[in-house]
């Protein structure tokens, strides 16, 4: 039995409506408890800001495409080099760091749970191996279903139960957490050399539309009762004028779940462009935010970009090809048989570029215009918009109008005409930031039930103590202190164990991987459906028996069983 007492903590816990109360947090065996004995280890937080461990609800840190990003950017490995020190492994890289680099930097910022944004089911083993090597964060994997042939056939047959059964089998086979749709149908069309320009275009050879895929998957997701909703990367990412597609997509979403949203729309900044070409691109953040304000069933994340060099990586192959046509830099496209694809290309977001400045402003506008912070979460789609180490700066921008104005003054002069950012006076408070970085994520991902993102008794003792005295700091003017404070925790506590102190990791990590096993009735189990098995054996290059990820790949896997309403 190990006990720990965090004393004099200035706690903000939005899910329990605790706002800047000085209190003690007792921890026993990795869980928050009512009280601990007098012999417990004591950490004195000295009145500093104490939050539940940070949660990143959309980040690309593990898996084949991240690794290919590393592979094609040897020059990035010159940045961020740290030598082996104490329990810390060597790390290197800035926008595509080594797995330990990711893990340590997240830990230093107080993040304890990360959702990998896109895992191709066929390449799940690699993702899980990298999860094991990201030892300080609990990991979850979004599983890609956007171009899954079996799913699209079920969609064409309008058979929601079949789609749900395929999702259930695949999630439990590859140890995934939730359904991710990346440019649904579009990546499959791209595999045939075509592209879709609206959610009502037909996917070649399958005669289904992205809209049908989205509605069917939402229905299947709710049938299975998965903890997270459908996680959607809308069609037409990064095309001027794409806000119409986004709004049309939002209109498809029913409000069918009382506990959480029915759709998680990710990196919406990339989907909120007006205009017709790059020359007349403008911000349509207010249209998007208005739609989200009116639809409590939707949660989005910012997908904020920050200026500097980074790498875009997504399962959205055609979009990466379009980016390549702009940059003429090294690039890659990849097809995952029967399932999805991906693309990778390095980019440089520059303050001189009007397009980049507009993108930067749109992300902030989205956050500031969305009334309920639970509906717009703070993300950069790491590393697509910016590496996650930029989160503190984004917090600074959201909390301080002055900082935004100072930054705006350094941007391309045309930015102000294309966006409404300078007219927005809203300055987020500490509670809203806590929601946008942990409580909102916990709720959206449905892991508050697993004890994440709050300090209720029985919750996992993931605690981040930041060297900020929020009563003494005025974030609207002293934003530098806020940024510095959020960059390095005094203590990051993971499951009751201090893992990082003043930015240095001090223990070997032992994370868990959460995965979902939706239980479906036997007659719907696709593994015993001869037609599914026949097609699987016929089309895949792997045998169905070899497809599921063995338990050995998840040394500390945590299975969440859900009962399907089938």
């Amino acid at each position, binding site marked *: 039995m190990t006990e720990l007492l965090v004393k004099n903590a200035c706690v903000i816990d939005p899910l329990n409506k605790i706002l800047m109360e000085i209190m003690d947090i007792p921890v026993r065996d990795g869980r928050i408890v009512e009280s601990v004995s007098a012999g417990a280890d004591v950490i004195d937080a000295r009145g500093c800001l104490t939050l539940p461990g940070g949660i990143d609800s959309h980040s690309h840190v593990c898996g084949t495409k991240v690794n290919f990003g590393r592979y*094609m950017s*040897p*020059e*990035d490995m010159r940045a961020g080099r740290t030598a082996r020190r104490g329990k810390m492994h060597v790390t290197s890289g800035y926008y595509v760091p080594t797995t330990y680099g990711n893990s340590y930097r997240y830990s230093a910022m107080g993040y304890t749970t990360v959702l990998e944004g896109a895992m191709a089911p066929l390449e799940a083993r690699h993702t899980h191996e990298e999860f094991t090597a990201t030892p300080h964060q609990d990991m979850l994997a979004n599983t890609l279903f956007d171009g899954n042939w079996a799913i699209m056939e079920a969609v064409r047959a309008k058979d929601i139960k079949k789609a749900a059964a395929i999702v259930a089998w695949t999630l439990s086979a590859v140890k995934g957490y939730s359904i991710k749709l990346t440019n649904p149908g579009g990546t499959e069309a791209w595999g045939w050399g075509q592209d879709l320009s609206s959610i009502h275009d037909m996917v070649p050879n399958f005669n289904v539309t992205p809209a049908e895929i989205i509605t069917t998957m939402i229905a299947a997701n709710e049938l299975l009762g998965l903890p997270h909703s459908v996680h959607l990367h809308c069609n037409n990412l990064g095309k001027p004028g794409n806000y119409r597609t986004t709004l049309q997509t939002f209109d498809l979403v029913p409000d069918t779940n009382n506990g959480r949203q029915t759709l998680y729309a990710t990196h919406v900044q990339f989907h909120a462009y007006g205009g017709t070409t790059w020359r007349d691109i403008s911000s349509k953040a207010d249209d998007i935010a208005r739609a989200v304000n009116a639809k409590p069933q939707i949660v989005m994340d910012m997908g904020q970009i920050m200026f500097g060099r980074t790498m875009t990586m997504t399962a959205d192959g055609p979009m990466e090809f379009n980016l390549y046509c702009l940059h003429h*830099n090294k690039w890659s496209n990849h097809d995952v048989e029967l399932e999805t694809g991906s693309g990778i290309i390095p980019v440089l977001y520059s303050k001189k570029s009007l397009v980049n400045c507009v993108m930067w402003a749109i992300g902030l506008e989205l956050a500031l215009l969305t009334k309920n912070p639970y509906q717009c979460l703070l993300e950069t789609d790491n590393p697509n918009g910016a590496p996650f180490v930029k989160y503190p700066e984004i917090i600074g921008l959201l909390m301080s109008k002055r900082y935004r104005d100072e930054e705006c003054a350094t941007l391309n002069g045309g930015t102000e005409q294309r966006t409404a950012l300078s007219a927005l006076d809203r300055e987020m408070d500490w509670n809203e930031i806590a929601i946008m970085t942990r409580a909102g994520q916990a709720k959206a991902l449905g892991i508050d039930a697993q004890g994440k993102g709050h300090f209720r008794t029985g919750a996992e003792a993931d605690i981040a103590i930041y060297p900020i005295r929020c009563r003494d700091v005025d974030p609207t003017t002293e934003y530098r202190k806020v940024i510095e404070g959020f960059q390095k925790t005094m203590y990051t506590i993971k499951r009751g164990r201090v893992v990082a102190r003043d930015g240095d990791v001090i223990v070997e990590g032992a994370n868990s991987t959460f995965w979902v096993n939706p239980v479906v009735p036997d007659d719907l189990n696709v593994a015993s459906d001869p037609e599914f098995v026949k097609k699987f054996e016929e089309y895949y290059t792997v045998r169905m028996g070899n497809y599921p990820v063995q338990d050995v790949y998840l040394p500390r896997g945590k299975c969440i069983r859900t009962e399907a309403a089938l």
Partner: protein
Amino acid sequence: MRVILETKQRKKPFLPIEAETIIPRNFLKGPALTVFEGNKERLLSDLFWIFVEGTAVSPDKVEVILKGDTARIKRVGEYMDTGTIRIQGDIGMHCGNFMSGGVIEISGNADAWLGREMLGGSIICYGNAGHYCASGYRGEKHGMKGGRVEVMGDAGDFCAEYLTGGEVHIHGSCGDMAGVEMKGGQLIIEGDATRPCGNMKDGTCMIFGTVHHMLPTFEKIDTKKLPDRDGTVVVYKGDVANRGKGILMIKKPLVGETIS
């Protein structure tokens, strides 16, 4: 001020020394510097006999002389901005990385990555240079951006890869793929080259020896008499496969071709 560093006998003479601290500016405050031998940090005086002659008020007056078994000393002159380094013998990899000013003189051979991503100053090597002479680091899109590299002997493969500015002059021959991905600057090869200038975007390359395996993606545009040179050169533009606007001049006729 002249600092002479003469190598001492080492127990393991094949272990490389990482000597990015050996730049003239650092010797202004005396030779109390450290370098890495393998993974061990050592005092400079552990590895070298150090002789200091005279004093200097500014780093540009500092001259560093390396003597003895210097072939495994790496990264000498990294980020050097002024002053002089003379190497009496061979030098290890990555000599003159990112250097922005000053002079490096090598009387022997240089190993790979000589003058990688250099910004200014000049390097002269009287022997041969290894692979990736005056190039960019792997994956880096802009290699050498300024300054001058002159090699009296031959250079290895990928000489002046991603050359973006400055001048590279090889008096001997180059290996495979000299000047590939060039984006600017000038590359002069007095000897032979194989498959030069693939995917060239801009800049000028002159080859006065024989070109083996010339790429078919260069467009012949002119013949020209160069000042201070005998005979004429054929001028090619390319690499047209990727809309390149580089200029490649070749003196000797390609196989099966006569210069009109």
